[in-house]
C-alpha cells in the first residue's frame, strides 16, 4: 500500500499536501470526543450503579434541651420502620462524624458547622430486584416518625444521568460529523487530483485499465496521507488527554467518581489513525469510481 507501483504522479501532487494536516486535526478532535464518550459512559455507569439499591432517610433535629435524645429516639424509630419494610436489606444510621465527612467537599473545614443542628441520615440498602412503592413508604414514614423524610436519589440522579447520556450522544454525533467532514475533504482532494492528472487517467483508461486499477492508486495515496496525518493527530492527542486526566484526578475529591480513561478507550484512540486512513482510502476509491463512471 505504501510501496506499491503507481503510474500516476501522485507523490508530487500539491493538491493533496494539506490532507495529512486536516486528518491530523480531525483525529485530534475525534480522540478528544472519543475520550469524552468513554469518560461519560463510565460516569453514568458508576452513578447508575450507586443509585440502584440505595435510599436515604433524613430526620430533622429537634430543638431544645432534650432535643438530642428525642432526635436519637426518632432515628431509632425510623431505622426500625425501615428494617421491617419488605425489600429493605439494611438500614444504618450515620453518626455525626460521617455526616460531617459528607459535607466536607462542599463546606471545607467542618469545625464551624459541627455545633449546628444537622439533620440525621439513615443509609438504607434495598433489594434492587424488588419493586417498592416509594411514595407509600415515604407517607408511612412521615406519619410514623415526625420530621422524617424519605430521600429517593433516583429522581435527581436520573436527570443527571439523562444529561450525561445526551452529552454522550452529542459526542458520538461530533465523531460522525468529523468522519463526514474528513470524507468530504478527501473527495474534494481526490477530485482535484483527478482533474490535475486527467490526461494520465485518460491514457490509462484508453489502453484498457480497469477503473479499479486507477482507483487503487488514488486509494493507496489517500491511505498513506491519512495514516501519516492520523499519527500526527494521535501524537498531539495523547499529551492533551494525559494532561486533562491529570487535572481531573486533582479534583477527584470524593464527590466526582473516577474520570480516568479505560483501557478500551485508549485502544480505540490508538486505532484512530488506522480508521482515518481506511476512511480516506475507501472515500477516495469511491470518488474515483464515481468520476470514472462518467467516462465513455
Amino acid at each position: 500500500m505504501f510501496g506499491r507501483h503507481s503510474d500516476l504522479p501522485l507523490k508530487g501532487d500539491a493538491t493533496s499536501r494539506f490532507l495529512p494536516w486536516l486528518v491530523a486535526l480531525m483525529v485530534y478532535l475525534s480522540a478528544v470526543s472519543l475520550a469524552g464518550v468513554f469518560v461519560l459512559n463510565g460516569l453514568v455507569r458508576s452513578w447508575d450503579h450507586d443509585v440502584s439499591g440505595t435510599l436515604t432517610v433524613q430526620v430533622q433535629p429537634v430543638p431544645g434541651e432534650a432535643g438530642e435524645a428525642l432526635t436519637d429516639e426518632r432515628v431509632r424509630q425510623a431505622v426500625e420502620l425501615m428494617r421491617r419494610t419488605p425489600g429493605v436489606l439494611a438500614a444504618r444510621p450515620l453518626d455525626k462524624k460521617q455526616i460531617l465527612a459528607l459535607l466536607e467537599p462542599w463546606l471545607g473545614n467542618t469545625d464551624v458547622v459541627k455545633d449546628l443542628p444537622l439533620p440525621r441520615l439513615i443509609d438504607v440498602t434495598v433489594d434492587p430486584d424488588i419493586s417498592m412503592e416509594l411514595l407509600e413508604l415515604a407517607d408511612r414514614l412521615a406519619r410514623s416518625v415526625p420530621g422524617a423524610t424519605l430521600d429517593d436519589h433516583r429522581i435527581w440522579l436520573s436527570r443527571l444521568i439523562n444529561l450525561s447520556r445526551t452529552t454522550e450522544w452529542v459526542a458520538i454525533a461530533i465523531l460522525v460529523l468529523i468522519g463526514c467532514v474528513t470524507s468530504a475533504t478527501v473527495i474534494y482532494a481526490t477530485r482535484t487530483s483527478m482533474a490535475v492528472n486527467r490526461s494520465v487517467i485518460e491514457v490509462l483508461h484508453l489502453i484498457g485499465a480497469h477503473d479499479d486499477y486507477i482507483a487503487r492508486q488514488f486509494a493507496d495515496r489517500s491511505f498513506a496521507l491519512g495514516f501519516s496525518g492520523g499519527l500526527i493527530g494521535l501524537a498531539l492527542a495523547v499529551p492533551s488527554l494525559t494532561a486533562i486526566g491529570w487535572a481531573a484526578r486533582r479534583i477527584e475529591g470524593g464527590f466526582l467518581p473516577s474520570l480516568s480513561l479505560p483501557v478500551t478507550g485508549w485502544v480505540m484512540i490508538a486505532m484512530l489513525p488506522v480508521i482515518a486512513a481506511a476512511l480516506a482510502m475507501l472515500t477516495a476509491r469511491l470518488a474515483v469510481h464515481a468520476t470514472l463512471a462518467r467516462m465513455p
Partner: protein
Amino acid sequence: MRNNRRGEHIIRFDSVGLRYGLGPEVLRDISFALPSGSFHFLTGSSGAGKSSLMRLMYLGLRPTRGRVVLFDKDIAMTRRYELPALRRRIGVVFQDFRLLDHLSAMDNVALPLRVRGVKESEVRKHVPELLNWVGLSEQINAKPPTLSGGQKQRVAIARAVIGRPDLLLADEPTGNVDDHIAMRLLHLFEELNRLGTTVVIATHNQFLVDRFTQYPRLHIDRGTVVEGE
C-alpha cells in the same frame, strides 16, 4: 487474443453519427467494415473528421447515433466493465503521442502490460527488446521531455504494439519524422499486419499513401466517408 479469423470483420460502422455536445454533427452516416487482418489508410484533409473517427474506433467516444460493432460486440449493448477487455485488444498511436512525462520510456511502453497484470519479470524482458527494435535502446530510462519528436513517436508506437493488439490505430504516426523514418515505421506496421494485426493509419501524407498503393483507403470528407476500399 486473436479470436477474429482473417477475412471476418473486426470493426463495422453502420450509419454512425457524432456530435460534440449540442454542436453540429462532425461525422455523418459513416458506414464501413474492416476485415480482420486488413491494412487501411484513413485519408482526408485536416479537420475532415479523421481524428474523431479514430476516437470512435478506439472507444474514446461513443457515437451519438448509429451502430459500432467491434470484435463482434455491439458497443451500445456492451457493459462498461467489459470495455477494458476490448480496449486491450486495440493499440493506439495518438496524434499527440500522449506519453506520460513523469515515466521513463521503459515505463511508458510497459503500461499496457502492467494494466493487464503481466509479471514484472516478463515486462522487464519484453519492453527493452521492443525499445531496442525501434532504435531506442539508449533512451530506455529517458523521460519524454528529453526525447526528440521522432523518438517520442517511436516510444508511442512501441507502447501501442507491445501487447500484440488485434487492431492497431495510428493517428498521423509519421507527422513528426522525415520520410526515411516514416518509411521505416510503415514497414514496422506492415510487419505487424503480416503477423495478423489489422492496421488503420490516419494520415494526410499523400507521399506515403502513394508509395503504398496496394492498401485500400477510407477517404473522409466533411464528416462522411466518401470513398471505400
